[in-house]
Structures are given as structure tokens and as C-alpha cells.
């Protein structure tokens, strides 16, 4: 899935940053620089995707 960061800036200059397509906490790493560059964080909300674990492969051998 395409990973995007959407920034919406309203006519009053207030910005909302949304990350899409990221699983787990990787979204925070992706958008941190943008958020810090824009200004002061006033609110934050996690979506269901945030709580998904990133898929990693694991091989189990049983003897």
C-alpha cells in the first residue's frame, strides 16, 4: 500500500498532518520531521492502523 503524508493547512494557517498506509509506529518516524518543521503540536490521535504490528517473517524449526 502506498504510504503518504497528507498535510492540510486551513485558511487560518492551522495544519493537520495525517499519515496513511503505515503500520504500527513507523508513521511517527515518517512524519516527525515535517511536524517539527511546521510548528507546535497541539493534538494527536492514533488510528486503528497505528496499533497494527508490522509484518515480519519468522521461521520456526521444530525438532
Amino acid at each position: 500500500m502506498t504510504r503518504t503524508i497528507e498535510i492540510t493547512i486551513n485558511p487560518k494557517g492551522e495544519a493537520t498532518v495525517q499519515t496513511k498506509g503505515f503500520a504500527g509506529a513507523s508513521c511517527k518516524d515518517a512524519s516527525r520531521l515535517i511536524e517539527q518543521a511546521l510548528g507546535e503540536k497541539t493534538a494527536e490521535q492514533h488510528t486503528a492502523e497505528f496499533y497494527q504490528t508490522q509484518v515480519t517473517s519468522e521461521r520456526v524449526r521444530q525438532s
Partner: protein
Amino acid sequence: MSHIVSIRTQIRDPAALAAACVRLGLAQPTQGKARLYSSEAEGHIVQLPYWRYPVVIDTTSGQISMDNFNGHWGNPSELDKLLQAYGCEKAKIEARRAGHNVTEQTLADGSIKLTIQVGATGGAA
């Protein structure tokens, strides 16, 4: 979606401020001291349309000094436009610096939406 953050835009990048002024057709900011109604302020000086006094921006702190007498000496929406333009230009600068593509779209309510595509290699923004 993964997470949503609300941000109060702060003007801290002189290059993005200059780009915002170009975007709005304003004169380029100058650095120095400016006289306001009852005080003086030092920083990046921007003359907004039809404002009696300029706004002075301290890019170190993001603080904006101004005197518009509750809108009588200048329409607050002009400052809002500057903040919006700055946010757009700053976000584009940062996204391009990280090597990402950015597209811009104006929404019906006057908001501006920027979409940054994060590369498959997972470059951080």
C-alpha cells in the same frame, strides 16, 4: 490512516518565509528593527496588504510582533494567509529535502492540501 497530528504553524524558516511572500505577491521580508504603534520589534519584517504597521517575525522563537488594533489597522485574514502560505512552502521544502514527491491541491473551503508520497525504501520525512 495511522496517526493524525494538529499543529499550530510557527514561522521559523527565513527561506520558507521568503517563498511564502513570493507566493502571495508580497515584498520580500527585510531584517532589522521596525516601529510598531507603541513599541519596536526586531526580526524579519513583512508588510501585509493594507496593514498600517508591518508584522515582525522572530524566526528563532516563531513569535510574531504586530499592532493591528483588533483588526482596525489591518485585516487579520492577511496574517492568516501568510501563515498558510508559509506552512505550504515549508512543508514542500522539507519533503523535497527528504527526496519525496509533493503534490498540492486547493480545497473548496480554502484549505490547501499537500500530499507527500513516501518512497518504497521508507525514507523518513
